[in-house]
C-alpha cells in the first residue's frame, strides 16, 4: 500500500486537512473522518487533532476524547500487519486462552504491542462474528477460523514470507 510518508509532517497535515474539509458537510462527520485518516496514515497522529477540530468546529478535547474512546483508533503507528486474537466466550469454549498464550509467546509481545521487526502488532478483540469456527483471529482484513497453535504459526510464517517476496 502506498502511504504518504508518515514522518513528513507537512505531507501528513496537508492530507488530513483535505480529508477533513471533504467530510465537513457530512452530518456527524467525526467517525467517518477519523476512519478515513487512519485508513490513509495507518494511525491518527496527535498533531492532526487541531486541524480536525478546526474543520469540524469542535474543541481539541472533544476530538481527542473520541479518538481515545474507541478501541479501533490508534495514536501511534502499528506494525505492517495487525493480528487480532478473539477473547470472547465462544473462542474460550474452544481453547482460545491457550491460543492467546501461544500467540504472545510466539510473537514475543503482549497485547497492544508490536514485534521488534515492526512486522506484527498484536491486539485482543471481543468477537469477530466467526463464532461457528472458534477460535478465530483476524489478520488485517481477513478472518481465519479454527486456529490452533500450528495454524497460528503458519499464518505468521505466511505473513513474513509474503513480506520477503514483496
Amino acid at each position: 500500500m502506498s502511504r504518504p510518508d508518515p514522518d513528513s509532517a507537512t505531507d501528513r497535515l496537508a492530507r488530513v486537512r483535505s480529508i477533513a474539509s471533504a467530510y465537513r458537510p457530512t452530518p456527524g462527520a467525526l467517525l467517518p473522518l477519523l476512519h478515513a485518516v487512519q485508513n490513509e496514515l495507518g494511525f491518527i497522529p496527535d498533531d492532526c487533532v487541531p486541524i480536525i477540530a478546526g474543520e469540524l468546529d469542535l474543541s481539541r478535547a472533544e476530538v481527542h476524547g473520541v479518538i481515545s474512546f474507541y478501541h479501533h483508533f490508534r495514536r501511534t503507528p502499528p506494525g505492517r500487519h495487525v493480528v487480532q486474537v478473539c477473547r470472547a466466550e465462544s473462542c474460550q469454549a474452544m481453547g482460545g486462552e491457550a491460543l492467546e498464550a501461544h500467540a504472545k509467546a510466539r510473537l514475543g509481545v503482549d497485547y497492544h504491542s508490536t514485534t521488534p521487526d515492526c512486522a506484527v502488532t498484536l491486539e485482543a478483540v471481543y468477537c469477530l462474528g466467526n463464532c461457528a469456527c472458534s477460535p478465530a483471529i483476524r489478520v488485517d482484513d481477513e478472518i481465519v477460523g479454527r486456529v490452533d497453535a500450528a495454524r497460528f504459526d503458519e499464518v505468521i510464517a505466511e505473513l513474513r514470507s509474503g513480506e520477503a517476496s514483496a
Partner: protein
Amino acid sequence: MSIRLYIPIDSTALSLGAERVARAIAEEAARRGIDLGIVRNGSRGMFWLEPLIEVETVAGRVGYGPVTPADVAGLFDAGFLSGADHPLALGRVEAIPYLASQERLTFARVGVTDPLSLDDYRAHGGFAGLARAIGMSCAEVVQEVTDSGLRGRGGAAFPTGIKWNTVLAAAADRKYVVCNADEGDSGTFSDRMLMEGDPYCLIEGMAIAGLAVGATQGYIYLRSEYPHAFETLRAAIARARTAGCLGQDVMGSGRVFELEVRMGAGAYICGEETSMLESLEGKRGTVRAKPPLPAIAGLFGKPTVINNVMSLASVPTILARGAAFYRDYGMGRSRGTLPFQLAGNLRRTGLVEKAFGVTLRELLYDYGGGSASGRPIRAVQVGGPLGAYVPESQFDVPLDYEAYVAIGAMVGHGGLVAFDDRADMARMARYAMEFCAVESCGKCTPCRIGSTRGVEVIDRIVAGEQRGRNVALLNSLCDTMLNGSLCALGGMTPYPVQSALKHFPEDFGLVPDEDNKGA
C-alpha cells in the same frame, strides 16, 4: 451454456479457505478448457461443511464439502460438474436434514442467491414487500407489522409495531431509521451472515420502515470488525439506488429514502441504542438517559426508528406474505422465527432458523450434534455475553421470551455458546465482569466501578478468602449493578455472573446447595 457453480463468499467460509478453493477451481477449469459460471453466494450456515461448493444440475443444486484446494482436481476427475459421486458429495443441499427441517423466512435467500444481484433478489421474491407497502398508507404498514407480533430481535424484545407507531405519530420536519448492526455479542453472527449473504433484504426492510414512519434518511451502523459486510452493503446500496429502489423516488412512489452505512470503531457499548446514536453523531459512545425515547428525540434530536438487523430483515416477509403468515409461527407472545446461532463447543455449528418454542436440547443435539470434543455439554450461554449460563437441567425449556425470563435467562439475539465439562464457570463469571470493565462507557458508577470490584470479589471467593461474606458482597454488588446501571451492559452483567454462581457453585469452591439449585 456454462455450468453454474456456487462458492460462498461469507466471512466464515472465507475464514476456512473458500477463496483459495474458488481460485483453485477457476484455474483447474481453465486448464481443462471448461466454461464455468462461478457465483459467490452467501453461506447456508452449515459451517462444518464449509467451504461448501454447489453445482447446478438437472436434479437441483448438488453439494460437495468441506472442499480444500487439494480436493479440486479429484472433484473434476470424478465429474462433480454433473453431480457425480465423490467422497465429499452431499447430495442435494436442500435435502440435508439440518437445512430441510428449518423454517427459513428471513434467511430464505441466504446461501441461495448471488448477494449483489438485484435480478436474483427479485426472482426470489425480493421487493414484493416494498411494492405492497408503497400501495398502503403509513398507518396500514405499521398496523401490519404490529399484527405480525414481531418483537425486536436485538435482545430487549420490544414490540416493533408499537415503536414504529410512536415515530409515525411524532411530528417533525425530519425522521430517521437507524439499523443497529453493531452485532458485538459473542456467539452471534446472523446479522453478519444476512448482510453478507442477502443485503437487499435489510435494505428493503429499512425502506419499508422509512415509508411507514415518514423517515427520509436511514443509517446502518455497522461494527468495524465486519469489513466484508461493509463492502457488501456499500455495493448493494449503490446498486439499489441506481435501480431506483432507494433514493429520491423509491420504486416510482414519489417518496424519498436515502441510506448510508456507517462504521463504528470497536466499542461494544455502541450496540446500546443511545450510545449508538451518540456515535453516529460523531461523539464518544456514552449512554443517554431515557426519556426522551429515541422514537421521540433520537438521532440529531429527531424521531428515530431503531431496530436491529434481524428485526428489519423480517419486515419484507411480513409485508409480502401478510401479518398472519408470520404470526402463525411461534408460541405464546413470541411470534415468528428466530435465526439461532450455534457456536462454541459443538460438532455442527451454524445457523438454524426456527419458530420460537424450539428447545435448547433440540438445537444442541439434533442440530448441533453434541459437543465437538465429544465430552458432555455442561453449560450454554444463551443470548450473548450478558446472557445467563443455562445448565443441562434447563435444556428442555422452550425458547420463548417469557419462558426464558421465568428461569432468569434471556433469549436475546438467539446466540448459543456451548461449553463442555472442562469449562471453569468461576472463570467465566470473572470474565463477564472483566468484559464489562473493558467495555463500560464510564458514564454510570455501578457499571464502571462495579465491574472492576466484581472481578476482585470473584478472585477473593475463588482464593477462599471469607467465602460467605464475599458471596454476599458479590450478590449485593450484582443487585446494585442490576438496579442502578443506566443501560443493559452494567444492568445485565449480573446474569452470567449469578447464573454461574447459582448453577455451578462448586467451581467457586462452594458447596452446592440443593435447596437453591432448582430455584
